[in-house]
């Protein structure tokens, strides 16, 4: 019906405007020329600011972008977005953002039917992905299984590496060279064996290899062959099951400081007096977490004492994906924005500016971006990393990350799993009970998952 109206309107307008009407070769429909507003939904002001930048750079864009930002902190973003998608009308989102924690619901899960394919948005997506060398995990997550089409892509690369302390490396192995340390911890080996040897070396000198078991979880989660749910059944992949033993091993051997993410102890390990050797994380962990917390109260700092190398097993952590609404009347305009954000590799594209820290003028934070092409021609040297070019490592890291073993249930199941692992590790219950209780919780919490 909406298409009909759009086409009818188009017909009326043909007299004056011959261009841009009718279906294009790849099946897109022209934008409704009466609509001059794009509704953008997001959970932070990151994408809205990018769009603003686009409008500033393209004064002839001709659309007003109306931004709706709902914080994810209290769980209101998804219900609000869902209601708006379902409600339709002039207020419905034309373009919306989804975070790694819940993106699967919008690209592959039950809300995926609202998404427009990038092709519908007028983007030559297959070719562009190749040209831009977009990390495969990002594409895998953004691909809708029902038709195999790409409906979402990210702009930021969140492939993870091992971020370690140079001074500790020197103390233990006599060198802080990333290539050597990569060998020492088994970077890129696909197994943890070498990593445990390094942990023992470090422990002998009094250093735990990581801060808490949460640090290693993302890598383990991402290393599994199967996701948590297959054909409606709970699957415990052996690699994920092994986390319970790894967590116990780390605890018993004193290979970590028993900290939790985002708590004082964890942050203390980022400061000068911190004892943990390293963290598993993407570039944002370097820029916004370790970098922002490297200074102690007394002015001591660990700035410059860090380096990155390949993680034993590839993974990604976090990220934001951008989607268009299939019911939008301004799909081509939305497509222009999304393409500029996710696939444009030129020096006036978003990602180039983002990677070189020039989005808001010179000297901004350099971030890893989805496009390998862009990173290859950008300068990722950070003084914080003692002048190391982080892109060398992160381009590889993006390739190793896996986007195939994820399901829309992950957030809740991971939560239940880590809870039971913690109960076992802290000695509250035995291994068998922990796994049994985990299965019980999953079965009781998700009515659509069968547990054997």
């Amino acid at each position, binding site marked *: 019906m909406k298409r009909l109206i759009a086409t009818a309107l188009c017909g009326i307008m043909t007299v004056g405007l011959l261009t841009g009407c009718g279906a294009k070769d790849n099946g897109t429909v022209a934008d409704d020329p009466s609509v001059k507003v794009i509704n953008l939904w997001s959970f932070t002001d990151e994408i809205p600011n990018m769009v603003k930048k686009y409008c500033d750079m393209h004064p002839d864009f001709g659309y007003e972008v109306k931004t709706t930002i709902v914080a994810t*902190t*209290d*769980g209101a973003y*998804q*219900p609000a977005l*869902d209601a708006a998608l*379902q409600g339709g009308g002039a207020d419905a989102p034309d373009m919306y953002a989804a975070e790694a924690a*819940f993106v699967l*619901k919008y690209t592959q*899960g*039950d*809300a995926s*039917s609202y998404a427009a394919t990038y092709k519908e948005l007028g983007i030559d997506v297959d070719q562009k992905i190749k040209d831009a060398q977009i990390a495969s995990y990002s594409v895998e997550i953004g691909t809708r299984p029902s038709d195999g089409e790409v409906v979402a892509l990210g702009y930021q690369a969140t492939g993870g590496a091992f971020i370690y302390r140079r001074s500790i490396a020197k103390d233990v192995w006599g060198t802080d060279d990333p290539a050597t340390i990569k060998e020492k911890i088994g970077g890129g080996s696909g197994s943890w064996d070498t990593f445990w040897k390094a942990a023992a070396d470090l422990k002998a000198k009094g250093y735990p290899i990581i801060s*808490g078991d949460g640090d290693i979880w993302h890598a383990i989660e991402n290393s599994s062959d199967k996701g948590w749910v297959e054909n409606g059944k709970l699957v415990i992949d052996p690699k994920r099951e092994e986390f319970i033993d790894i967590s116990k091993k780390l605890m018993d051997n004193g290979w*970590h*400081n*028993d*900290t*939790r993410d985002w*708590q*004082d*102890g*964890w942050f*203390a*390990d980022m400061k000068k007096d911190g*004892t943990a050797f390293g963290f598993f994380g993407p570039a944002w962990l370097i820029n916004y977490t370790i970098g922002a917390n490297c200074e102690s109260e007394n002015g001591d700092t660990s700035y410059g004492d860090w380096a990155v190398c390949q993680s034993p097993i590839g993974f990604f952590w976090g990220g934001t994906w951008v989607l268009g609404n299939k019911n939008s009347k301004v799909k081509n305009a939305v497509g222009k924005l999304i393409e500029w954000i996710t696939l444009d590799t030129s020096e006036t594209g978003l990602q180039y500016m983002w990677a070189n820290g020039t989005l808001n003028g010179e000297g901004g934070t350099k971030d890893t971006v989805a496009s390998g092409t862009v990173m290859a021609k950008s300068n990722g040297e950070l003084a914080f990393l003692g002048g190391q070019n982080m892109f060398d490592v992160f381009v590889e890291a993006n390739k190793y990350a896996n986007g195939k073993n994820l399901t*829309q*249930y*992950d*957030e*809740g199941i991971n*939560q*239940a799993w*880590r*809870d*039971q692992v*913690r*109960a076992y590790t*802290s000695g*509250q*219950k035995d291994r068998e009970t922990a796994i049994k*209780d985990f299965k*019980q*919780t999953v079965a*009781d*919490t*998700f*009515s*659509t998952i069968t547990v054997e």
Partner: protein
Amino acid sequence: MKRKGVSYAKWGYIFSAPFAIGFLLFMLYPIVNTFLMGFTDMVGVAKLTEPMHVNPAGIFKVYNDLLHNKTFGKSIVTTFILWILNFIPQITVALVLAAWFTNDRLKIKGKGFFKVVFYLPNIITAASVAVLYSSFFQYSKEVMGPANELFMKLGLIDQPMDFFVNRSATRWIVIFIQFWMWYGYTMIVLISGILGISPELFEAADIDGANGFQKFLYVTIPSIKTILLYTFITSLIGGLQMYDIPYLLTQGNGEPDGAIRTTSVFIFKQAFGNVPSYNVAAAASMIMFIIIGILSAIVFFLMRDKDEAELHKLIKRQEKEYKAKLKAEKAQGGK
């Protein structure tokens, strides 16, 4: 102008009409919707806007499953434990404080200040409260956290402990937070009830020579019975729907190991989880509604108005007996 003998009944309808209209406009649909959802197969956001239809697996399937859902069953027990253990100290402390602050003979200086200050914890949002307490009780091997530091100094513990892997420690923390957030509120409600008592009653008791405790027992408590009923019922409802602190204090699913997974946390996870099971959430809500309804009915029955007259008589009789006893004692003392 009304003539004598006119019935005022219609004013009852007129005055309650705004409530009824407000209810019909804003609450009827959501409630009916919730009631019906439990009998459908609504799982996943896409189903929300589709027309409802009866669950093909059986109309009572969801209810039936819930009765066998161990996690739900445990959450009911947890809810009761957390509620009862915070409500008893809460109402006791609130009553004692209310008695102190309304007793003019005690001449407590700064009682106005205390009354105002004790309600303050209720002003902060639950989110901030949760952040505060989880920071206070945090632990790691090297950074022990403020609570551990304090408890070690006081000699309560020998070595720092990880409170949030310990089920009972976490429960006690939640119980304390709930107490701390709500005793001031309860106290204010009770004080407002006490202030509504006619001063003549107290004057009469004074003349009778009753001491502070006697006045509290024989004048205050019976006079605020209606308000006490309100406190019991609303605390029951609020307590059995306890949600924000258990949800926000740990990772959000009643960690550790379901120690603080209340029914409302369970329901929230069902309704707003990754793949929401609206039907389960709705059915669980209805089960909680029935439990709350039955318990409220019991409380109402125990404190019912019909007994008021009898209770009154009883109190009078006790008072008389007490006075007689006083007399006898005095007579003895006078010898």
